[in-house]
């Protein structure tokens, strides 16, 4: 315990220091040095994270019976609002944050290594590493947050580092636009998050997770002891509203419909950043948030949980459909990410609490873990491909399997994993989600089942288009070649993780349910083959269709598209959601609100002030006319004055 407590601060301090050092002095360093420095330091951080996580899980120190205990490694008062409400910066260790530590440190370390190759020779290399360090700091801070406000703090920091990374190529209009969009959309969601926090914390008089999620007898203590249980607003229980608002915050970061629009555009950033932030870590923050507050959701706001599952289901199918029609490989992956995160949300939405009931919860976290690995892998592989062909478009690719062998193999592994083919990791996590959905809500299950097939289809469409399908029309500018080792190493490493976790699960070596569950108590589950088999079937069917259409260069895809021209076009244009947003922001907010307000200010308010000054001015102008300088006028006034006085004194 003491040992971990003494180590824990370094998890946050080191990346922050790196950020400051690289940010302030990066300019003076040689790029290579800064890259190496960043990577090495983050390597140390990863080791600490691993150490903490492994120690936590396997030393047995932190278990009472089968239940993992929540441990606060350190907690430091940061800002005191009033008697009860204190924002602290601390380090909360429980299975949830331990798992996240592993995910983040792994992916982040891989991205650090990968970027050394990918970003080689780019201007602003040091800046990239600085922001990467900032992001790692923020993300780690987020997952180890001891209170909801600390989470919010790092939540914002994550958002801003995402902004900075997307706008890394700041001289490109599209990048700047995408960055702005990402930031504003998430910020919009964060506002709801903040309001949710305010409501929740006002009534429970605490920000701390350990108090907020403390459960006795199937109720959350903090809430039972407050007015929240009985309060309603507009007919809705206030607690539900609060939790829904908090979920909206998560939805913004996790790109749930309809707040998903920023994620595809965020692909304007450098690919390693996309891999880290927009695929593996930051976007699952929403899932993490819901998971973190899961006890409140499940006990006090079950309806919200239901809504979450519906939104998740809709988003997953929605994004999957769009993914089928995209031609930019990073965008396909982006929509796939949206869809997969929605999967996790669904899993949380259908989950119950405790033991097997909490299967969805476990599955969600498990899927988060596996997805982070293989999606980061996919992105990095995509990065390697882009690095090789200098384009994001599918049309500029094809037949790359010989030219990029390592990328090809690792990409295939990841595709199989995401398509849910055993024994890769994705199969198991996805399977559990389907099981959990099946037991709770058949409709959601049906949707998810379909999405599983769809996922297999679009992933293999991507795979075939890149690695098979024949050479691109224009040919390659110069022969694509395999990326250097520092780029392929992360690919191989992540592929290995994907395979090994899958296999070890298959052979029962590591059971995820032992590590993480809704009440942190381990339980046993078995693979439900009655659901697993059809889901494999769906995956296989998806793959087969993709094979049929895209293995060779034929007219089949075009033909297929011609059958569903309209829907295809809709999906290709992402169902015009972007356009709707654009309309709302441009035409309604800017033109209907901002412009009139500015006009009102300049003309009415300021006009009123100017009118006042005009009136004053005019009056004094008129008054000064009396002082005309004409002697005769003065004389007249004088005489009349005298006469008046006389008349007055006469009392006539």
């Amino acid at each position: 315990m003491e040992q971990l407590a003494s180590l824990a601060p370094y998890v946050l301090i080191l990346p922050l220091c790196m950020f400051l050092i690289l940010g302030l002095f990066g300019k003076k360093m040689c790029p290579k040095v800064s890259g190496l420095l960043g990577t090495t330091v983050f390597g140390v951080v990863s080791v600490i994270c691993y150490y903490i996580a492994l120690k936590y899980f396997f030393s047995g120190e932190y278990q009472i019976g089968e239940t993992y205990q929540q441990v606060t490694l350190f907690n430091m008062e940061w800002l005191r609002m009033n008697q009860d409400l204190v924002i602290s910066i601390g380090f909360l260790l429980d299975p949830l944050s331990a798992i996240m530590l592993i995910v983040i440190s792994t992916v982040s370390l891989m991205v650090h290594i990968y970027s050394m190759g990918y970003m080689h020779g780019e201007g602003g290399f040091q800046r990239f590493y600085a922001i990467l360090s900032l992001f790692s700091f923020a993300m780690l801070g987020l997952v180890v947050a001891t209170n909801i406000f600390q989470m919010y703090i790092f939540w914002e920091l994550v958002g801003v580092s995402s902004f900075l990374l997307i706008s890394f190529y700041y001289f490109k209009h599209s990048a700047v636009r995408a960055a702005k969009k990402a930031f504003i959309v998430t910020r919009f969601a964060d506002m709801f998050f903040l309001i949710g926090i305010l409501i929740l914390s006002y009534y429970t008089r605490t920000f701390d997770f350990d108090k907020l999620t403390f459960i006795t007898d199937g109720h959350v203590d903090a809430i039972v002891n407050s007015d929240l249980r009985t309060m309603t607003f507009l007919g809705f229980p206030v607690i539900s509203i609060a939790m829904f608002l908090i979920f909206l915050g998560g939805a913004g970061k996790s790109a749930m419909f309809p707040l998903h629009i920023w994620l595809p555009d965020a692909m304007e950033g450098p690919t390693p950043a996309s891999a880290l932030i927009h695929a593996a870590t930051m976007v699952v923050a929403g899932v993490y948030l819901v998971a973190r507050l899961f006890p409140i959701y499940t006990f006090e706001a079950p309806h919200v949980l239901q809504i979450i599952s519906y939104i998740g289901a809709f988003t997953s199918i929605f994004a999957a459909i769009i993914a089928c029609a995209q031609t930019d490989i990073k965008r396909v992956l982006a929509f796939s990410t949206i869809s997969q995160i929605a999967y996790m949300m669904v899993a949380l939405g259908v989950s119950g609490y405790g033991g097997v009931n909490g299967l969805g919860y476990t599955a969600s976290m498990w899927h988060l873990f596996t997805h982070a690995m293989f999606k980061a892998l996919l992105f990095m592989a995509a990065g390697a491909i882009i690095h090789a062909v200098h384009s994001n478009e599918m049309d500029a690719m094809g037949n790359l399997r010989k030219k990029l062998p390592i990328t090809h193999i690792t990409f295939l592994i990841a595709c199989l994993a995401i398509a849910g083919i055993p024994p890769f990791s994705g199969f198991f996590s996805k399977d559990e989600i389907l099981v959990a959905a099946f037991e709770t809500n058949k409709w959601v299950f049906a949707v998810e089942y379909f999405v599983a097939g769809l996922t297999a289809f679009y992933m293999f469409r991507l795979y075939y288009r890149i690695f098979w399908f024949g050479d691109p029309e224009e040919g390659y500018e110069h022969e694509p070649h395999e990326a250097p080792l520092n780029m392929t190493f992360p690919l191989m490493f992540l592929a290995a993780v994907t395979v090994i976790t899958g296999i070890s699960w298959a052979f029962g070596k590591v059971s995820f349910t032992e590590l993480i569950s809704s009440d942190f108590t381990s339980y046993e589950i078995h693979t439900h083959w009655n659901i697993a088999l059809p889901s494999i079937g769906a995956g296989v069917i998806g793959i087969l269709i993709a094979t049929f259409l895209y293995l060779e260069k034929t007219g089949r895809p075009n033909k297929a598209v011609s059958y569903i021209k309209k829907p295809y076009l809709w999906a290709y244009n992402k169902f015009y959601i972007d356009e709707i947003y654009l309309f709302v922001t441009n035409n309604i907010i800017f033109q209907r609100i901002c412009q009139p307000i500015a006009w009102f200010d300049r003309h009415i308010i300021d006009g009123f002030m100017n009118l006042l000054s005009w009136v004053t001015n005019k009056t004094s102008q008129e008054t000064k006319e009396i002082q005309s300088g004409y002697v005769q006028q003065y004389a007249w006034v004088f005489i009349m004055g005298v006469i008046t006085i006389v008349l007055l004194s006469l009392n006539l």
Partner: protein
Amino acid sequence: MMAVIFCINGEKKSLIRTIMSVGGFALLCTSTYLTIQFLELRQIDTTSEFLFTESAMWYERFNIHYSVGVDGISVAMLLLSSIVVITGVFVSFAMEEKVKEYFLWFLMLSIGVYGFFISLDLFTMFLFYEVALIPMYLLIGLWGSGKKEYSAMKLTLMLMGGSAFLMVGIFGIYYNSIPEGGEGTFNIQEIAANVQALKANGGDISWEYIFFPLTFVGFGVLGAMFPFHTWSPDGHASAPTAVSMLHAGVLMKLGGYGCFRIAMYLMPDAAQEQAWIFIILTGISVVYGAFSACVQTDLKYINAYSSVSHCGLVLFALLMMNKTAMTGAILQMVSHGLMTALFFALIGMIYGRTHTRDIREMGGLMKIMPILCVCYVIAGLASLGLPGLSGFVAEMTIFVGAFEHTDFFHRTFVILGCSSIVITAVYILRVVGKILMGPVQDKHHETLTDAVWYEKVAAFGLIAAIAAIGMAPLWLSNMIGGGIENIAKLFTYGL
């Protein structure tokens, strides 16, 4: 302590730049020293409201004293002022014409500001308020740019209009707070005690209902409260850089500070009764300023409207009348002071190079002057409330505090206030995206140079202060909170 500050001010008058910066630095040291001393003394002496008090009669007939003293709030404000003043001095190094006169008036302005913050006597306070106001006219009118005469006139007249209200308010307070058979006083503490005594004895306090709005509006004009804010965009746009900094950074805080120290402290009952009117007004200015900023094209206008929004939040928080929100308000004052000073400093530097403030004519400056632009981004982030920078601390404290009110009316306005953080993000990012990022718009801009040393000193100094507050807000918050308590306890839900 006061005397030291004045000595420095006095000695600097005939000298220029170097001496100015040395003086400014000395001022900063003095303030820091004062802060440390204050914190130490506070440890020992936890009872008295104000520390370092001094008093000297200067107009016997009305019992007007020159009495000064500081509590946590004024210390924070003094610290803010000295930081802004010294950075302002550095920023003004580029000044070419009439340097001596410029600094003279600049000093006059700062004397007014310091005096205001440390005064404990209504009349002295008002005196310093005016002392701070008048130099603005000259500074803008002589060293400004654009329609400077108009702006200077507008600014001065509107603020003077405000102080007319204020004067009525002050005399109203003075005459009505005279205890029966006793002598009238201008001393704030004594007045507060008298008013409380009056209330306790069941005396007539209906006069508060007349003079509270007058005083509040009087200071509200300076605090850029809707609809009395229109001097701010024009004034800021025309003022020279350092004056904008000092004005938006410190002078506008006089408004909030005055509302707090005079209007609310001396007339707590009326404040509670009539708060709703001003909550509506300030709520409007929060959102309204932010929306207006979204479509402006002049950098300084954007920032001025942003100030309207932020200062609106200050007053809004004050009106929430509990300790947390009020602490937030003071934090917001400090934070906004620093960050808006940074903004104006940077805008001035950019303007000095590009000779335009129209955002449509700029673009891609990040490539040309990276240091300035990074500073600008940081200022922007502070403004939109990024954690780790001061804006966040302040805003969150305000929102948490404001949320203590459970009724529908307050809740609505709190949520309205929260929405401003999104709009803030919109306009900040709009500017950042437009002028700093993207391709270079104007070929002539490519040859421009980055910051020179004194500009760096100014910008980094402010950033350091912003970050320091953002990273470790607790000491400041506690220090302010100590001062707030005395006032907050007058209100029903104060503590």
